[in-house]
Every structure is written in structure tokens, then in C-alpha cells.
């Protein structure tokens, strides 16, 4: 595959680890002028309305750890819920340019599309009579309409988002199994990188549907109640949109057509696996 930006893309976790091992600047701390919002604070502020979530993500923020000189560029393909696994004082999120070695993840366009779908039309929190909060809707017409007509920030091509990123991680590098089952040589980066890359297990969602977990604060995963409620409600839409697309040739073609360059960059095939099997 031709890498049009001459960036390295790691297609396998071992490649990534080898690459990390070859970088001399990984063990250094962040530049002292690096500023941003602690991740925990970010969730509070976006929920409370002090930060406009849309414009914040539109500015392509990066996640930074105070003890490593790397930044993960937000490319919109993973659920922000993952970041709750990394909540501690060491992590913060920044929209300011910082001189760090930047990673970006290249996601399968279907995955990224369905995860970003929750931002589509989300501005409609209430209707004209003020009765209802915004509705997540999924359906063939709606998906076709978004794929065809929506040009908002969440619909940008990944190839554009990752243009200036130092290293691209292919989705294949991301472990979709519990992190305890993996072994890494680079212990220093294990938590930070893996926490970021770790994709939540689908079963996590059910915790929010039990009377024990929902609306209560049990453990750090759900300490930001309103944020996680907003975020996790979209999984039903995500799952359903995925299902519509893999079962419709028309929608599959629309997706490929819209993100042709991303498909080519990652050598991705059309997704055929069911969301539940995949997640």
C-alpha cells in the first residue's frame, strides 16, 4: 500500500511496539508550556455547558500524558467513554499546538462513521414546544441522508485529520480483548497507550441498564453520570446503524464512496461482521 504522506502506519501491535522502542524522545516529559484541561474536568465542563462539545472536537484536540512526550490526536473513531478509563491527574486534553510526537488512529470508516453519528443533529436538544430532548434516530433514509448531504466536522475524511500526524496506528493494532490478557514489553507505555487504545467491551453498556449502575456513582467508570449517560445512549444507535449499513448494498456503496481515500489508505474491505460479533 502506498503511504501518501510518507508516514509510517503500524498494522500490527508488534510493529507499533517496535516503533515506540525506536523513538528516543518517548521517555521525556511533556514540554512545560503544554496546557489543557484535565480529562476529568473536560467531562464535567462539556456536560455543564461551559465547553461547546462540537467546536471542541472540531478543533481536533489531542490527549496528552504529563509523563510521556506523545499526543493522541482525536480522530473520532473511538468512543469517548474510553477516556474514562484513563481518568487521573496525569491526563489532559488540549486544543493548543504542543510539540509532541503525535499518534493518530486510522479506523475502519464504518466504525468511525457509526460512532460519530451521535453528533449528527445533536444540537436539537428540545423540540419547538420544549417537550423532548434530542432524539437519536437510525434508519436507512436517515443514514443515506447523512452520508450524502452532511459535511459537518464529524464527517471529515480521516486522511485529512491525520495529515500532519507523526505516526498512524492502523485499527488492526488495537486489541479488542481485555487488556489483562495482553503482554507488552514496554511497561512504561503500557498503561497510557493501552488505556487510550482500549475499546470498551459491549457488556459495559448493560451496566448502565441496571438499577444498580444507572443513575448512581459506582466506581470511576461512571462517576461522570450525565456525560456517560449521554455517551452510552448512542450505542443502540451505533449498533443499529452498523446493521443497516452492512445489510444494504446501497448504504455500503455510499459509505465507500464517501470515504474512498480512507478505505484505500487502510486497505480496508467492506465490513460484513455484525456489530455484536465485532465489538
Amino acid at each position: 500500500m502506498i503511504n501518501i504522506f510518507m508516514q509510517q502506519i503500524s498494522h500490527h501491535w508488534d510493529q507499533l511496539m517496535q516503533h515506540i522502542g525506536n523513538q528516543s524522545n518517548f521517555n521525556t516529559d511533556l514540554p512545560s508550556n503544554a496546557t489543557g484541561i484535565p480529562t476529568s474536568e473536560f467531562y464535567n465542563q462539556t456536560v455543564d455547558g461551559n465547553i461547546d462539545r462540537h467546536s471542541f472536537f472540531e478543533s481536533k484536540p489531542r490527549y496528552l500524558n504529563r509523563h510521556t512526550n506523545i499526543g493522541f490526536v482525536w480522530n473520532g473513531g473511538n468512543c469517548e467513554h474510553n477516556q474514562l478509563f484513563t481518568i487521573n491527574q496525569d491526563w489532559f486534553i488540549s486544543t493548543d499546538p504542543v510539540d509532541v510526537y503525535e499518534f493518530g488512529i486510522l479506523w475502519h470508516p464504518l466504525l468511525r462513521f457509526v460512532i460519530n453519528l451521535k453528533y449528527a443533529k445533536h444540537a436539537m436538544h428540545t423540540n419547538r414546544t420544549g417537550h423532548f430532548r434530542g432524539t437519536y434516530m437510525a434508519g436507512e433514509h436517515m443514514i443515506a441522508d447523512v452520508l450524502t448531504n452532511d459535511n459537518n466536522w464529524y464527517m471529515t475524511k480521516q486522511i485529512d485529520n491525520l495529515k500532519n500526524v507523526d505516526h498512524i496506528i492502523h485499527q488492526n493494532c488495537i486489541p479488542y480483548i481485555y487488556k489483562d490478557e495482553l503482554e507488552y514489553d514496554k511497561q512504561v507505555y503500557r498503561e497510557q497507550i493501552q488505556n487510550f487504545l482500549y475499546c470498551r467491551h459491549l457488556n459495559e453498556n448493560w451496566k448502565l441498564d441496571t438499577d444498580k449502575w444507572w443513575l448512581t456513582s459506582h466506581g470511576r467508570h461512571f462517576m461522570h453520570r450525565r456525560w456517560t449517560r449521554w455517551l452510552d445512549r448512542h450505542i443502540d444507535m451505533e449498533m443499529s446503524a452498523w446493521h443497516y449499513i452492512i445489510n444494504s448494498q446501497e448504504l455500503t456503496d455510499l459509505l465507500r464512496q464517501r470515504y474512498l481515500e480512507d478505505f484505500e489508505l487502510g486497505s480496508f474491505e467492506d465490513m460484513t461482521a455484525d456489530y455484536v460479533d465485532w465489538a
Partner: protein
Amino acid sequence: MDNNRPLDRAKNTVDKFALILTGAPRGVSLQAWDHRLPQVYKNTVSSNDSWSTSPHDYWWQEDRDPPEVHVFVCATNFDSMDRYLRGEDPRLAGLDLEPYIDYENQKKSTLAFDMIDDILHYRDEHGTVTGGKMKLKKEKWEKHHLKAWDWATSVNFVYWDGYQMVDDMYKHFLSQGIETIRLENTTWQNQYLHMLAAYEQHKEFFDSLTEQSVVFRHRYDLSFNAYKSLWRVAQVLQTDGYSNQNDPSAWNWHEQGFCLSPKVMVPNLHIFRGLVSAGDYWNAFDGPGTQLFAKNYLDYLKQDPDHWRPVGETLDYGTHIKWRVPEHSLPQFCMQHNYTILHLRDQEHLGTRMLSLKDPPILDQWRYEWYDWTPEMVEEIRQKCS
């Protein structure tokens, strides 16, 4: 198995389950619906190995055969008007995300009503609705449900529409000297009238049900906690409604013969202005409770125009002593017929949640999916009415 545990006792006593799906087909086309409803209910008869967790108590884990589970899929033959379709919240109407009616502009909303009415209804020379135009896509509907419920003992399709009933009710009250508003459809009553239709069309089955049967009626867009199943309903309906039989210090309701009455289980039981009220998105009956309801609910509606009129149609709304909301209907009927009414504080207690009551709600484009609505029709309304 410990027979002292209510759940185990239920697993030893339930003879049949009947699941009755009623109301508008919201959410049904979603993968999330399949994942959260039929696939969860499947745990009633088998331990679902597609979940990566160990089997749960509420799943069937016995070596013996589970009880029969019969599913009744009810639907109206024709699409009908509702407040969301009229523009209050077009997203809940199951069409587009973008509004197509300027709901605050009375002229435009009236024009939109006329346009939608023309799409939905046939009317006679007096302007009375005589039938529906927008047919349910039955072939697609049945194919979808047969696949979703392929594990069930039987899947039964119940089709019904209320045009004749609307006329009958109007004439019934007129014959008693009471002039009521002539309704154009059966609105929220569909969720109960569908159940009556299921009984009428499958009398032999429903009459065979006993005190040990569990009938669970609910609206379509319900989601159920993955770690539960119909055994959760059975547990509460058959055992948890009473005090602990095995605790000699407890007040044992059984000794008072309370369990001899037909049973109903409802969520969110309250008394509003002297009338018993409960959530109407689901309820569970035992066999006698089902039969009594199916045979007598229509008579209950005919007793009083206030039993029949939908919300907002009652005179002196808000001050009238007979003020009613849909949540009054089932519990008031059950009070009148001496049911034992069991109660769970809220729907989460049972393990359910309505997809449309989530925050934010998750819904599908169900009118496009199951009825012959097209984007062109909606666009025409949008051009003239928004």
C-alpha cells in the same frame, strides 16, 4: 434448585408464557431492539451463550424442557394519526429528523393535518373516517418477526383496526343520550385493544391459561436488561407479591386467600385525585387475570364516556373530578374487578426501559420501515407547511 427461592419456585410452577406486543411498531427495525428484546427473552428458554458472561440466575439453566413461550405480535392494519406525526415532535413520528411542520403556526399546522389526513384516511360524504389508506407492509413485518422470535414456541400475528369500534362507541353513548366527540381513531387505547384482539383471535389458547401462566403485555419499544428474562416477570408476579411464606414471623398474605383473586402486575402505582394510576407501557397478568380483562375491558369502556375519551378530550380538563389519563385505565378496571394488584416501583426495577424514554431517546424511522410513507410525501408537507 432451592425451592424456597422465589425464582426457583417460579421455574417449577410456570406452565406457559404469553408475550403480547402491542401499540405502534416503534423501534422494531433497530438492531438494538432485536438485541435487547427477542434475544434477551430467549434466555427464558435457554442460556444464551452469545454473551460472554456466565449464565445468570434469570436464564433457563435446567436440564428439563422449559415452559412454552407464545408470542403475539399485534399491529393495526393501517397507519393512523398521532400527535408526533402532526408535528409536535417529528422525530418521534418515525419519519425524518428534520421538522416538516411549523408547529407553532396554526395555519400551517392545520394545513399539515389536512394533508396527512388525506394520506391516511378515507372519509364519507359527512366527513367521517371510514377506513385507512396507509397499509402495514405485512409480508416484511411478518418476515422480520418470524426471524426475531424463531426460538419461541409459536409466533402469532394479530391484525386489527379500530374504525368500526370508534363508530360503535359513538353510537353506544348516543343511544344512552350522551353525545360524545366522535373520535377518529382509538389512539392510546390501542395498547389494550390489541390485547383484546389477540384474545378474540386466539381464544382457545388464552382460555387454556391458568393461575400458573404468565402473560406479559407491553409496547414495542421496550428494552430488557440482558441479565434478565421472562423469569423475572414470573418471579414477581407469582411469588414476590406476597410476604415470605417461609418466614413464620412474616405476615403471610397467602393465608388470607389474597392469591385467589386474578392477578395483575403494574409499574409506578400511584393514586391521582382518587383514581388508581399506573404506568401503561407494560403490565403482566396471570391466566385468570388475562381472561377477565379480555372479556370485560370493552364493557368497562362503555360504562362511562370518561373511560373512553382520550387525554385532552374531557370537558373541564384539569378541574373535572373525572379527569383521566391513560395511566388510570387499566388499574381502575382492575380495582373494579377485584384484582390483586402487584406493583413494582418503576420499570427499571423489573429490568425494562423504553427506548423512547431514554435520555436521549433512541428511535427508528418506523413509518418508512413498516408503512408506505415515502420521503417525497414528507417533503411535500415540508414545502407547504414549514
